């Protein structure tokens, strides 16, 4: 018999195992959230991923429900179908609820992502115009930068020239004793 765990306080093995799993799940979720926050895909790729996940949730939902649905009585002429008391009836009643909740959550997530799209200022022509004016400004600033750079290099050369002359003079003035 297992005594009480010093940290988690269990008294039996199965709840210990399930809590370990829960703990690991929380850890994995935290890592996933960390990655998702600091290394995001761009918004359009996220939207595309979300659309694909909605699609896969849809066909998983319908596929699972169709595959696992218990037989139902079609007409009073036929006898009652034999009940299947396997794990179906216990968990099956929750399946539609869980899966539809997941679908709705995915759809809400999609809406949240759409809201996170940056506002589309103007159309294509406005963007092209902005690009043209930015290019012009970039060229102007670039040319001025080039001019300043050349002037600075010229001054540097002059200063280096003067410095070497001054150093030569210093050396020539200092006679060795």
């Amino acid at each position, binding site marked *: 018999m297992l005594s009480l765990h010093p940290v988690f306080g269990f008294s039996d093995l199965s709840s210990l195992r399930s809590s370990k799993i829960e703990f690991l799940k929380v850890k994995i979720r935290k890592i996933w959230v960390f990655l998702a926050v600091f290394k995001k895909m761009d918004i359009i790729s996220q939207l595309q991923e979300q659309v694909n996940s909605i699609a896969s949730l849809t066909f998983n939902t319908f596929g699972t429900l169709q595959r696992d649905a218990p037989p139902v009585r079609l007409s009073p002429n036929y006898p009652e179908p034999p009940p299947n008391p396997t794990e179906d009836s216990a968990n099956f009643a929750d399946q539609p609820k869980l899966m539809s909740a997941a679908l709705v959550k995915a759809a809400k997530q999609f809406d949240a992502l*759409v809201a996170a799209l940056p506002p*589309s200022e103007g159309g294509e022509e406005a963007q092209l115009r902005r690009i043209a004016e930015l290019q012009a400004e970039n060229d102007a600033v670039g040319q001025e930068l080039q001019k300043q750079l050349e002037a600075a290099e010229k001054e540097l050369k002059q200063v280096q020239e003067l410095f070497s002359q001054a150093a030569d003079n210093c050396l020539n003035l200092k006679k060795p004793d």
Partner: protein
Amino acid sequence: MATATYPPPPPFYRLYKDYLQNPKSAPEPPPPIEGTYVCFGVNYTTDDVLPSLEDQGVRQLYPKGPNIDFKKELRSLNRELQLHILELADVLVERPSQYARQVEEISLIFKNLHHLLNSLRPHQARATLIHILELQIQRRKEALEDIKRRREEARRLLKESLGTLDGQ
């Protein structure tokens, strides 16, 4: 045509023997290709544009026009999708043999969704370009200011040292 497994390099490397001494003695590289070209037996085109939905034979559910409000259309397509999923569930319960039509509607909505998202990409590319240009302009301006400041400081130092030398 190079169809051997390990084809030799193209033979015109010999024309570039004196390139270091005289860059003009060798032929210029060929101009960029326009139109369609063949690469490894496959036809490629240089004009990469997203084919519109009609070209693929798919009905377009969101309105055409010069400026589409992407957010609104995406949201309304999402709502349509949810409604159609519910319809499919209903059809499966009541008239299970007529699922095909609903499934086709749902796939149509998905195709429209993806096409809309794909048509956002050129917009995103232009916005990225604008952002990069703005960053570059800002960096250049900062460098310009930096150089100006350093030159001023150098000039000031030289004046000072001239003053101290004269004072001697």
